[in-house]
């Protein structure tokens, strides 16, 4: 992990390269996070990849309900040479949840961005094949959002199959 000063220096370098990319930095439990402008995610990731963070470990979504902007997408980057990790976080509104896809930078982003789209409804522009991946293709709603109710799925031949009207249509 970069230490707190290392993170600030990195953010400073990034601001010099792209003046309005970094919105904030966060250093928590020895973990460094760059909070970036959602419109600048792709160039920031590209810049960080050039700085040695060449491995995309994970992409995941978070719903910050009731805070606004509600949805967050986190990119966990890893520098295998220096064994150094950094998190890039972008927050988007639910009205227009759009981010530029990172698939041209890392093939690893492909399935994980599909999962974030599937669970949170964040649309990744430029993604080659943005479909649902875990839920059925005709599923409605984004189940990992905090306002999506737990349970309530009609289950065939169980107690609640007739409690959800019209499930069989």
């Amino acid at each position: 992990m970069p230490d707190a000063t290392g993170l600030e220096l990195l953010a400073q370098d990034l601001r010099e390269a792209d003046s309005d990319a970094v919105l904030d930095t966060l250093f928590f439990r020895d973990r460094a996070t760059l909070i970036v402008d959602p419109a600048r995610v792709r160039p920031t990731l590209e810049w960080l990849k050039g700085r040695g963070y060449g491995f995309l470990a994970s992409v995941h979504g978070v719903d910050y309900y009731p805070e606004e902007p509600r949805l967050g997408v986190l990119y966990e980057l890893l520098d295998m040479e220096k064994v150094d990790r950094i998190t890039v976080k972008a927050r988007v509104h639910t009205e227009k949840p759009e981010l530029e896809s990172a698939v041209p930078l890392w093939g690893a982003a492909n399935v994980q961005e599909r999962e974030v789209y599937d669970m949170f409804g964040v649309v990744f522009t430029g993604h080659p094949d943005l479909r649902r991946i875990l839920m059925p293709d005709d599923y409605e709603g984004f189940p990992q959002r905090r306002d999506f109710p737990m349970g309530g799925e009609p289950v065939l031949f169980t107690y609640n199959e007739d409690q959800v009207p019209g499930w069989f249509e």
Partner: protein
Amino acid sequence: MSTPNGSAYRQREESLTLSHLEPELAAAEGLSTELLTLNMGPHHPATHGVLRLLVTLEGEVVRDVKPIVGYLHTGIEKTCEDKAYWKAIPVIERMDYLAYFFNAMAFCGAVEELLAVEVPKRAQYLRVIHLELNRIMSHLVWLGTSALDLGAISMFWYCFREKETILDLFEFSTGQRMHTRYFQVGGVIEDVPRGWVEKVRGFTADMPNRVNQYAAILDRNEIVLQRLRNTGVVDEETLLDLGITGPLLRASGNPWDLRKAAPYCSYEDFEFKIPVGTVGDNYDRYRVRMAEMVESVRIIDQALDGLPEGPYITEDRKVALPPRHELATSMEALIHHFKLVTEGFRVPPGEVYYPIEGPRGELGCFVRADGSAKPARVHMREPSFIMMPALAEMARDGYIADLIASLGMLDPIIGGVDR
């Protein structure tokens, strides 16, 4: 049609002459070849679970594979948001059902980071012993089932014999064979029973010989060599681009292992080697996992030798249950016990991503806490899910039989893919 590789068997196969079929072939003149799309699964024994492969074939050669996942999606990440932290551990263990200690370790590690709780040394060592036993167990199931896919049924019985030994050890120490709920936030639920350490020693003394026996059966087995060597080759750059770590990456020659690179849970105390391959084919993947089992045995031996005395779970009563005997005498212990069992402990707000080295690669747990007693978001970075696109790279332009071998050597666990 291109030749996927140049092994002797394949050359013989391609040198066969079809001259006696000349009349039929002449009659077939003018017919065109076309691609065939074949659905493999979801209920196919070689897909190790409920995985559906959409295979595009040209004759017997695979031109493309599209894995279709989600048949086993149970929404465990969503379920966790409705459970107190300690009650989320049993469901999280059920994600990758062959690596339950690893799932629990990643989650507990993330929550411990959020709470800034110190884990006692004895608990860390007990965790390492269980993790490495689990790694051997997971590799044994991989070896047995993959060998079964390649046609070697006896390997399955041998591997499951040793797997049962490990599960008996788990039952002895934790009370359950699988999904043990043994790892708790702050340590482990209870100390290992008397006599367990000797049993584990008996196992570790035996296991290297067993691995040698498997190697004697498989390493130079003609069928294994024909099926695995030079099949499913993927180079290091492609694997890194796809975000793949673990035995697959190590088989291509990159010695990346989080236990060495960024030690957690006292792994820095142990001496072990990281097996790597050279070519990155299926045979290297097989050899790397075989060697990893022996290294895991070494780690267990060292952890048993150095097993420190002391508490097995943190003394912080806000996080861990008080000892049973205190409940009868101490009012405060009773209150702590009541608070922990009813509400659970509260975790200060924050986000932590905690990666560990699972049997299939980097297993990372992301936990967001919002200050309540339930996690606001749990996400598991499952190596099985990340590695699925690599199957297309491995199987493309190879024979369909090599697709089965590649899938076996990929070792995805569908419970982990779909979560």
